[in-house]
């Protein structure tokens, strides 16, 4: 039983110029105690997936199809907003937003902000108990517990990020979403935060969704990788399979633009020509065909099906499919 199963999720934004198909038939799963990484360029729909799961889409965004099954019985896509608010958000699923360092209110003490998160979601808890828990949470994320009495400006960037993580864990959620947890942090501090997330994952048995544009972070932290392009999944599967045997030309392109510091020789980096498409009128057929160097006629006409190559390794590409059918691997 998966902790979370996203099935054929479709989320569109209505704009004056038409519907933006930000997420279009996306499916993946998250297991307990495991991290699933969502990777892709800006505008590929990563963050919209996260907002859909928490149902915190902007007013013009709507989930128009698909299921989001939480603990296989609750369909978040169809859940009543009131139930969502009282029972799911923060108690079951929580999130740390991108640029979380700036998400704190500068005129309240850090501890009080965590207390607020606790008492809002658990009305029975007294302020004193909540403050106690806030201190424990701070300790858990590696910040001196007495710092609950400080204001956000007295924290460094890394500490603010840790405090945000503490706040997200305030009501013992089972699923934790981190949107770009390490961008905007310095290399060493980013590594410290990643290490913390990894420890929390094992210690608390958290399911995690990690949204990032940095493939190396996914390699570092996740068990599963989902590569998104223009609102669709290009490739997904076990992180080792995806990184060691990338099949989709887009995945291969992304890997090529990610140099490794461990490389023996200086290498020439490869870029993917062109820019991601406008999702108001995405390209027909395979959405990647406009930038794909292997594009064939069929790519422009038909949308490639999602195919399981090996157990748990899915790819959506005509070329891979043709090769696969030609000679069985």
């Amino acid at each position: 039983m998966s902790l979370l199963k996203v099935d054929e999720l479709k989320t569109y934004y209505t704009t004056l110029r038409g519907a933006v198909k930000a997420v279009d038939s996306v499916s993946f799963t998250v297991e307990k105690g495991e991290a699933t990484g969502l990777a892709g360029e800006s505008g590929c729909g990563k963050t919209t997936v996260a907002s859909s799961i928490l149902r915190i889409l902007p007013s013009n965004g709507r989930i128009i199809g698909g299921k989001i099954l939480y603990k296989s019985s609750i369909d978040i896509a169809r859940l009543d907003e009131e139930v969502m608010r009282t029972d799911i958000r923060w108690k079951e699923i929580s999130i740390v937003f991108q640029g979380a360092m700036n998400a704190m209110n500068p005129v309240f003490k850090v501890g009080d902000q965590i207390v607020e998160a606790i008492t809002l979601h658990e009305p029975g808890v007294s302020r004193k108990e909540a403050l106690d828990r806030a201190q424990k949470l701070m300790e858990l994320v590696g910040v001196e517990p007495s710092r609950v009495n400080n204001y956000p400006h007295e924290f460094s960037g890394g500490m603010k990020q840790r405090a945000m993580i503490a706040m997200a864990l305030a009501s013992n959620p089972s699923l934790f979403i981190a949107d770009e947890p390490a961008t905007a942090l310095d290399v060493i501090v980013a590594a410290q935060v990643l290490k913390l997330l990894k420890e929390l994952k094992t210690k608390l048995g958290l399911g995690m969704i990690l949204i990032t544009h940095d493939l190396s972070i996914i390699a570092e932290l996740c068990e599963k990788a989902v590569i998104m392009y223009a609102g669709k999944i290009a490739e997904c599967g076990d992180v080792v399979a995806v990184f060691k045997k990338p099949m989709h030309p887009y995945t291969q392109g992304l890997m090529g633009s990610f140099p490794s510091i461990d490389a023996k020789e200086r290498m020439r980096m490869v870029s993917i020509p062109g820019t991601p498409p406008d999702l108001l009128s995405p390209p027909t057929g395979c959405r990647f065909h406009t930038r794909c160097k292997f594009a064939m006629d069929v790519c422009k006409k038909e949308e490639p099906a999602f195919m399981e190559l090996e157990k748990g390794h899915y790819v959506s590409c005509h070329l891979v499919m043709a090769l696969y059918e030609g000679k069985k691997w």
Partner: protein
Amino acid sequence: MGFFQSVLSKQVLFVRAVDDISFEVKRGEIFGLAGESGSGKTTTGRVLLKLTEATGGKVFFEGKDITFLSEKEFKPLRRKLQIIFQDPYESLNPLMTIRSIVEEPLIIQGIVGKDMEEKVYKALEDVELIPQEEFLFRFPHELSGGQRQRVAVARALVLDPEFVVADEPVSMLDVSIRAEVLNLMVGLQAKRHVSFLYITHDLALARHVCDRLAVMYLGKIMEVSDVDQLVNNPLHPYTRALIGAVPVPDPTSRRVEVQVKGEIPSPVNPPSGCRFHTRCPVYIGDVCREVEPPLVEVEKGHFVACHLHHK
């Protein structure tokens, strides 16, 4: 010192953003400057181009001391010294067309007429914004991030500079297009022997772009060396920590290790002795706290400022 005290007293406090550093950039080389934010990388780049005035020390360009030249004396040299800024969304005037953006440096330098036209076309060709006619009369908002940054590169190159400071030129760009801007830089270095000072916080990119690399911390250079040497055999504990903290895009290889605690201290009041001693995992005693280690050559072309490696 409290706020009122600092307002009322005559004493002026300094932030030593860059404190007593020396290095040289050879002709036709890409010299990398890496470090965390607040380490003084950008200030160094700006001082070299006299965008920020140095308090002391000297900057030599082709053997000539340019540190305290007047703006008038320096103007002819601006042709040879150019800069590419970090954020292509901020560094291009939204009211100017691509053509006026790229030709502005030429006008300032008095290169007008047919020459100007030719140079603008040539610069746009060099950065692969072709056909040029398609871009000349567009505005920055009509271009993608990668294209904008290429306009910024064209603007820097239109005067045929000999030395370009590239201040985090790709940190605002999407991963799939970073490579195109960096490859452009490497190509120009090879083709035109332009020298670059490449300022970055991303060591993995620096590894593949630079010839030599300097690591800065709180306004000081900690280690300088050939890039292969620096990455494969880092000597300074800070360099080691930085390299160890870079995640690798390979799920089966080494994991990140963080031996260093805490964050970079404030440059207003930097630690005494070795500035890294407060976070150093191999602190060897009072000498680190009291004596500032000089930058010494320990192997050919490999300089380190650390007591561990000084005999």
